[in-house]
């Protein structure tokens, strides 16, 4: 029990990120409306990006822009003083891909509404079977 408690208190951040991911996953599977599924997908994506960025953070570190005077650094650089910039770079690409997917998915939703006049998944399935 104490083992469980120490882990919960020390790593409550990770637990909250996982709860956010599961909210997004539930919305993608269980909701009937197409737009709600899209919102769930986006919640899932941003929760994963949050998780990755939190891997790179360090206690007491500053933003990854190197303080300099002129073109060189006067003193020796300490990498533990700066936040790890590599997850930030990867997640920039992930945000860009996320917004592109969101735009194309909205275009698909508009097209489906033009054809079937509804956005609920069960009604669309009924209308496909009828026609």
């Amino acid at each position, binding site marked *: 029990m104490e083992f469980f408690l120490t882990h919960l208190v020390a790593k409550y951040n990770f637990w909250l990120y996982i709860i956010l991911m599961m909210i997004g996953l539930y919305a993608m*599977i269980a909701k009937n409306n197409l737009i709600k599924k899209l919102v769930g997908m986006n919640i899932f994506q941003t929760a994963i990006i949050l998780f990755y960025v939190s891997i790179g953070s360090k*206690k007491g570190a500053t933003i990854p822009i190197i303080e300099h005077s002129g073109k060189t650094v006067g003193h020796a650089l300490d990498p533990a003083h700066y936040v790890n910039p590599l997850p930030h770079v990867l997640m920039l*690409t992930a945000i860009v891909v996320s917004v592109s997917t969101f735009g*194309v998915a*909205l275009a698909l939703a508009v097209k489906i509404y033009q054809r079937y006049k509804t956005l609920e998944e069960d009604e669309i399935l009924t209308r496909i079977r009828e026609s």
Partner: protein
Amino acid sequence: MKKLALIIVILSGALLLYATKDFPPWGDPTSPASVHVSPRYLEKSLEETHVPNVVTSILADYRGYDTMFETTVIFCAGVACFMLLRKFEVEQRDLYYRHIPTGITIHIKGGKEIPSTSGEFEKIDTIWTPYDFIINTVSRFLVPFIQLFALYVIAHGHHSPGGGFQGGVILGASIIVLAIGFNLRTAVKRFGEKIDGIMSALGVFIYSGVGALCVLLGGQFLNYGVIAKVLPVGKAMARSHGILGVEIGVGISVMAVMVCIYNNVASEGKYDEGL
């Protein structure tokens, strides 16, 4: 369906929560993610590329190949929206016109229309919002300042947070603000469809063009150091200029694609009425 979803979510959630047992504590400087490659980037970025913002130098120089395909993904999203929604032949509809001197609105049925050369009538949307002086003036006043800020964000991405992608989105937003404050036809008249398509492809072309220039000068693809043969600067400064050129390409492409997606989604591809 909801019960099945709940079971799946609880199962995978429990699995992931069990996996957090082995994570390093949060904010640990000696965690495995911060020990292997990134100290080398942090130490060497300023002297090898003269760019203090380490995220920009990794994004555009050390991992520049990924960013090129990210730009291609954005371009593909714009093309996909265009191909899904754009309709060139428009069916006959009722049109609404407003007589400018007197303010009378006219409803013309059956698809006939008043030619656009007569200056007294202006076409209004079917769901017509009243002409609002404050919104029109403020949005028209703000557009050049937004664009100036976006160009600052692109150009200053070496020293402050920002870079090509963020500046490109803000540039696209400056055209969208025109489409929301006035109507879609005004924005399309300012930034047409053809120039939009050309610019979205031009951005990707500039990016791979810089890489091809490096190959032509004798180095590898996207190795900006060999640009020092053409420009009269040192090797590290040539890498800085290569990063700037590449960011400009990303910015142009992103701006054009944001405007393209908005136009196609807000008007269902017909480009006549908007949001």
